[in-house]
């Protein structure tokens, strides 16, 4: 007797709730990021002389204040995780082969973690008045 089979690769059922949390995170982080990013853009690009004013002194001046330290650190974390998770969606959508998909996702998260670590180290261990030969670059209050 011949049976007619319906060939179809079975869906992979795993990681219950992971997609749910990822989905929720995208929305929650999105809302917070609006405040953080627009605040950031406003202060850096709009107030005063905008982009023109940005240099080491400007950044140092900001990060001397813990408020901006927290602000930027949070923004870094959220934006990177949000962006990386968004990229993961794209990779899952478009990568045809499982191997490539795994590789790309692994790379994404590695980069994400590296940058978070790097960025966090920068903002938390930042010294607005480092020992430097170029005194010019330092903010006013160091001199």
């Amino acid at each position, binding site marked *: 007797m011949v049976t007619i089979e319906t060939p*179809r*690769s079975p*869906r*992979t059922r795993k990681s*219950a*709730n*992971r*997609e*749910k949390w990822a989905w929720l995170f995208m929305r929650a982080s999105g809302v917070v990021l609006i405040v953080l990013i627009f605040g950031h853009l406003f202060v850096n690009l709009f107030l005063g002389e905008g982009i023109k004013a940005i240099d080491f002194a400007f950044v140092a001046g900001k990060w001397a204040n813990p408020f901006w330290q927290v602000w930027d650190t949070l923004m870094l974390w959220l934006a990177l995780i949000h962006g990386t998770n968004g990229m993961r969606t794209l990779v899952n959508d478009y990568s045809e082969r499982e191997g490539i998909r795994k590789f790309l996702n692994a790379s994404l998260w590695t980069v994400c973690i590296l940058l978070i670590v790097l960025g966090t180290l920068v903002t938390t261990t930042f010294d607005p008045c480092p020992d430097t030969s170029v005194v010019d670059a330092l903010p006013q209050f160091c001199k």
Partner: protein
Amino acid sequence: MSTAVAETTEIGVVPSFTVTLFVRRFSKEDDLEARWEDFDVTVHGTDRVLDALHKIKWEQDGSLSFRRSCAHGVCGSDAMRINGRNRLACKTLIKDLDITEPIYVEPIKGLEVEKDLIVNMEPFYQAFKDVKPFLIATDKPKAERLQSPEERARFDMTTKCILCAACTSSCPVFWTDGQYFGPAAIVNAHRFIFDSRDEAADVRLEILNDKEGVWRCRTTFNCTEACPRGIEVTRAIAEVKQAILRGKP
């Protein structure tokens, strides 16, 4: 009713005109590549794309293949891409399209093409079956179960589905790898999740909480716009997402 008289002579006097159809042809048996083939057809004012396809099949090329049955939008056989959008051929009047341009007709996207406008619907049906699309209740009623008109209205919209696949095959996420359950399966899960008589909402919610479940929907609304039954598909999907988040329908 004197006006009726004047109008009567008008009705039905829709002139015939000639249109060009570009039909996407493909056959596994002998073709190497899918190709566009054009046909000139003379159609009547009330003709639908299905009538034009029939004219081609019956008068010009008998080998043109497509599915159809009811011819009035209730059986869901003839979803296809007409001028770039998913529609039922039997519900698309030719005069409503831009007839100064050729009409493009091609199979729905994301499912394997078998021949001309016929695609392999099996993965689509499988996704439907995977959401347990049937009433699950443990009680053994002797008579009818009671349900208030309000409870009945709660899922009315999604009972209209005719499984035509216009929605699922219009979904950009479905096109990517065909693994996403797709809007039609979610619509049919919705129909039971929100039925007051059903007891297995949590089971279906769990199924759709999958990697390939509702979270893959990116709210592109192609499904809602494609549905020939006017089902607000994206809304149904949103309601299912909320039900999963809240843990209950």
